[in-house]
């Protein structure tokens, strides 16, 4: 039993989840920052829900939704022949839902603090909406992206309840580090639990400190 198997699985899960979240979270954050629709608070509430819901509640409904008889899970079984629940792919889907607010909110805040005139100037200088987004909004929102990436990565790394509900405890597939630690504590293997926990604590510190350093550099220009 090595401690790096679950650790590596956690890192893989966090990397894939973060990548997916940047891809789907950015347009959501941009839409939320620009829209004047009355629908906005409702969408914001849905995105923010994973922050307040117990992971078990989230995990329970994701289990049903992603299971072979669920709306998404059934479709997935038809498409690929295998179930989403108790698989790495299923974990990625669950993690994306679980960590969505941690990616969207920092990016949305960064987009909202952009002076409107920067975008308008870009348009009058010949940039299309998409062009202005990538050439002006993104470079001026780097802090938001860094925060969103680091927070969703770290948050995915530390998730437990949702993983347990949706993924179970399959070594090499869904046995991520937080589950492994729980196992070790249950079987009174405190030495292994210590090793993994300390590794996580150290990792969390390094990543967050790095984020704050990067953000300070950026604000100093």
């Amino acid at each position, binding site marked *: 039993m090595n401690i790096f198997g679950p650790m590596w699985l956690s890192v893989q899960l966090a990397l894939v989840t973060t990548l997916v979240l940047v891809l789907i979270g950015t347009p959501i954050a941009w839409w939320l920052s620009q829209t004047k629709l009355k629908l906005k608070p409702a969408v914001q509430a849905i995105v923010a829900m994973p922050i307040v819901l117990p992971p078990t509640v989230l995990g329970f409904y994701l289990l049903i939704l992603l299971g072979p008889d669920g709306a998404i899970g059934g479709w997935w079984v038809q498409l690929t022949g295998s179930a989403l629940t108790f698989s790495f792919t299923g974990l990625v889907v669950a993690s994306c839902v679980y960590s969505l607010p941690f990616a969207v909110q920092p990016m949305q805040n960064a987009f909202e603090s952009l002076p409107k005139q*920067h975008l308008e*100037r870009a348009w009058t200088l*010949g940039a299309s909406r998409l062009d202005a987004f990538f050439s002006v909004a993104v470079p001026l929102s780097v802090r938001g992206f860094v925060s969103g990436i680091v927070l969703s990565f770290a948050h995915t790394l530390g998730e437990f309840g949702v993983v347990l509900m949706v993924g179970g405890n399959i070594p090499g597939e869904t046995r991520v580090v937080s589950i492994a630690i729980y196992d070790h504590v249950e079987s009174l293997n405190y030495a292994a639990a210590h090793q993994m926990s300390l590794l996580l604590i150290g990792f969390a510190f390094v990543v967050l400190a790095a984020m704050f350093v990067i953000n300070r550099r950026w604000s100093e220009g």
Partner: protein
Amino acid sequence: MIHLRHKLSRKDFVLDIDVQVPDIGITGVFGESGSGKTTLLRCIAGLDQEGGLPVHKRNIGYVFQKPGLFPHLTVRGNIEYGARRAATSRVDSASVIDMLGIGGLLDRKPDSLSGGEAQRVAIAAALLRSPDLVLMDEPLASLDGKRKDELLPYFDRLHDELSVPVIYVSHDIEEISRLCDHLVLLDDGKVVASGGLLDVVSRVDVPVLSGRNAGVVLWATPVDHEDGLTKFDFGDGDIWVAGKFEASKSPLRLRIAANDVSITRDRPASTTILNILRATVEEVRSVDTAIALVRLGAGNQDLLARVTNRSVRRLGLKPGDRVFAQVKSVTVRH
């Protein structure tokens, strides 16, 4: 000519514009705040309308009140931003950089520039987009008096060297008088007057121009210097202005505010006022209970005097009267 036709309804404001402006030179759009000047520009640019041609396809250059340069780009990056996206490149970047005097700033970041420098960079960026029309929304309003004076000569150069038409919005009649050739007056979202600058500013029937904004713009040629003053040939007389302006054949643009002109029946014998011109009363119009505007013909140009109704009665002023106009102060475009 450029035909501007824009309609826009908001809760408590309606913009309804239908006016032709020249496709050459600088057209001033003047009005009190809230008259719809900025809204008009934003409509022309497509910034305030849903639908229609998207902003980036309209090929206009827009200079905002605050420069708003992109902070993540250098000055060079900022002025190249529009140039790289221009469909055609009709403007020589070296000459624009030289005209606006920003050659030494190219590698700086926007946050290290003064307000005037940043605005010059923003103008260069707008021009290098090779626009068909440049829109300027009070580009001097965010600057204090000293910075404004530093920037004005660059606008004079723009006026003289630029081939693209400019629509210049301002609530400062001095600025408009100095820079513009054509003038559109806006009031409450509608055009109340439009025409050549010299004709429009001397009208006495337009309320926006009856208060402290009243005054005339005229042309005069500097001919002589004496005692630190410059003598301008004014057709039927001379005007002396403090400061030294090179004698030349081409006339300069002078502005005489109506507040600085007073009227006497007889030529005053001893007065500190240097400029006393023979004039004929052409029109007297009372603008409120106390004040009247008097339009005077002097030489072949018009003057406006802002006087009290009481003085008009006391002197019995009526069209055709021969009088003397005392001019206290004159501003000259350098």
